[in-house]
């Protein structure tokens, strides 16, 4: 039947993607992706956010090519605290280092923190949430109580205390932020698990003799991913701000690493006269976390059209 139709009139690519009777799994998946993408692309601010994040990735990858000067070694004799000029586009800091180059290399540290926190915190939350939701009973109660307790803590203060005990450094900052940011993911994963737990396909898998581990890992976790990704993207901005805050207090990346928060801290002494030293890294933080916020908002609206699209 369908073959007959397609012989009469070649289908356009859009029709092939939008088909409500996909011929293959790949067509179904591509069609789905196309739908999400067209919803996402219709939100202009979300596309701006995506562009910012892609730009951040490119800058981080090609930092060695893009940076005009060294990020750590400066010209102490001739180039201390210079205002922006054609030689140093964003000026230089108190060590005679080019601020633009430091910003460019700093993007790597920002990405490093964000990605590591996501890699540590999201799986913890996913695991706790799916186990809690699938097991139910006292396991659920205990795990959710613990999650609630962590959720009720002030995140920044707790991260501060953790880093104070572990010692300053970018790895410890990552650990501290990850420890304080998994609870929302656990809640989301649990809510998603509860909605699919009693569905027919789970019952079918169970009848086929799948172990609870297999059910949770192979059949429940993949379904939690999309809402989890949205939430992680939305949290990225908060993670960047917390990391920058720790850096500002001298608890994050240590000198001479060009971490943006630490750069603001070192520019603080010169804020009255050489304001560009502190202004530039703060602006970079603002742009990047704005990008993540816009992207997260857009993803939420695109992946979950039922939700309140604000």
């Amino acid at each position: 039947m369908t073959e007959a139709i397609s012989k009469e009139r070649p289908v356009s690519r859009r029709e092939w993607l939008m088909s409500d009777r996909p011929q293959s799994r790949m067509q179904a998946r591509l069609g789905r992706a196309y739908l999400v993408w067209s919803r996402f692309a219709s939100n202009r601010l979300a596309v701006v956010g995506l562009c910012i994040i892609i730009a951040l990735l490119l800058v981080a990858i090609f930092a060695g090519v893009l940076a005009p000067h060294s990020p750590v070694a400066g010209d102490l004799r001739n180039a201390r605290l210079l205002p922006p000029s054609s030689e140093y586009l964003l000026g230089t800091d108190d060590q005679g280092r080019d601020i633009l180059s430091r910003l460019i290399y700093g993007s790597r540290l920002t990405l490093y923190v964000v990605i590591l926190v996501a890699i540590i915190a999201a799986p913890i939350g996913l695991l706790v949430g799916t186990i809690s939701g699938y097991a139910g009973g006292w396991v659920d109660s205990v795990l959710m109580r613990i999650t609630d307790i962590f959720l009720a803590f002030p995140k920044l203060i707790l991260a501060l205390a953790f880093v104070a005990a572990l010692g300053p450094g970018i790895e410890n900052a990552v650990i501290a932020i990850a420890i304080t940011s998994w609870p929302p993911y656990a809640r989301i994963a649990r809510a998603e698990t509860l909605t699919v737990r009693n569905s027919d396909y789970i019952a079918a898998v169970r009848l086929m003799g799948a172990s609870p581990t297999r059910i949770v890992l192979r059949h429940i976790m993949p379904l939690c991913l999309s809402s989890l990704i949205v939430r992680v993207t939305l949290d990225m901005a908060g993670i960047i701000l917390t990391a920058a805050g720790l850096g500002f207090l001298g608890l994050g990346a240590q000198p001479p690493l060009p971490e943006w928060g630490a750069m603001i801290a070192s520019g603080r002494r010169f804020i009255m006269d050489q304001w560009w030293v502190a202004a530039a890294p703060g602006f970079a933080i603002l742009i990047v976390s704005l990008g993540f916020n816009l992207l997260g908002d857009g993803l939420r609206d695109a992946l979950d059209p039922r939700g309140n699209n604000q």
Partner: protein
Amino acid sequence: MSSTEQQLESRRSGAWASSFLWATGRFILIGAVTFLGLLAVTFFIGRVIPIDPALAIVGDRAPAHVVERVREEYGLNLPIYQQFLIYIKDALQGNFGNSVLTTNPVMTDIRRVFPATMELATFGTLLGALFGVPLGVLAAVKRGSIIDQIVRIIGLVGYSVPIFWLGLLALLVFYAKLGWTSGPGRIDVVYEYTFTPITGFYLLDAILQGNWEAFRNIFSFIILPASLLGYFSLAYISRMTRSFMLNELEQEYIVAARAKGLSETRIIWGHALRNAAVPLVTVIALSYAGLLEGSVLTETVFSWPGLGLYITNSLQNADMNAVLGGTIIIGTVFVAINLLSDVLYRALDPRTRPR
């Protein structure tokens, strides 16, 4: 968030659960468990992460018998669960040990600096609510218009900007360049001897004493950090107000009110906002708790002598007793406000009242 889910849970759990007494007991229980969790985490940070807490106190060059004496004195030779029990007992009595930096008991220090933080956070929340609620209402009523877009961007920037950086720029512009406000600090040295704090809330103290000159001076100091914190709570409050209002404006009673011929002003401010006010109270309470936490960075930038600055100064000097004491206090207030906003929600929303 957690509050709404807890509420649904308690609603589901049947009629007998709806008695007010039971609900109160439940809140106290949740509060106690969370507080215990807070203590467990700070205990873990202070006693378990350092390899040898005794060495952390006396330093690694101390002779062996000194280390041994300290270990006994602080009960560090006891099994870990006994140490934790002692820790809980001490914390309940408000004993967090002595600060290495000031040599005072940590609790005495905190009592001294906490009003400054409260004053700043309160002022900030007031500003945030004062401007955030009308902006949110306006954005909801004129949905999709230029105003809505502007409110959205104000909110997004508020979510994305590093607070300490904005504080530095604000100091640069309003203090150094324009000279409109005072710089870092809380009050001019000139008033150190003529102005005596009573409550620790300087603005209130100045009013109580009728010292208007001091009031003006204090105001010129607090306005910058408070506006900064206010901006952050504005970002959150306006966004939530907008979504609550959109929700209310879709309801049928609004259509009924329109059909009755009520003025649009009356419908929006008298009917829709009044119904949105119940969840808004929760939001404002939560943003207040957020500002208490956010004060750590703001106080550092503005040299505001509050708990946040106390914690960061202690951090710089590896004064763990002070850091953890401050963490417990802010955490406790945070947890308490969370629970209180839950109770308030129940008290204000007639649907959750026991029948």
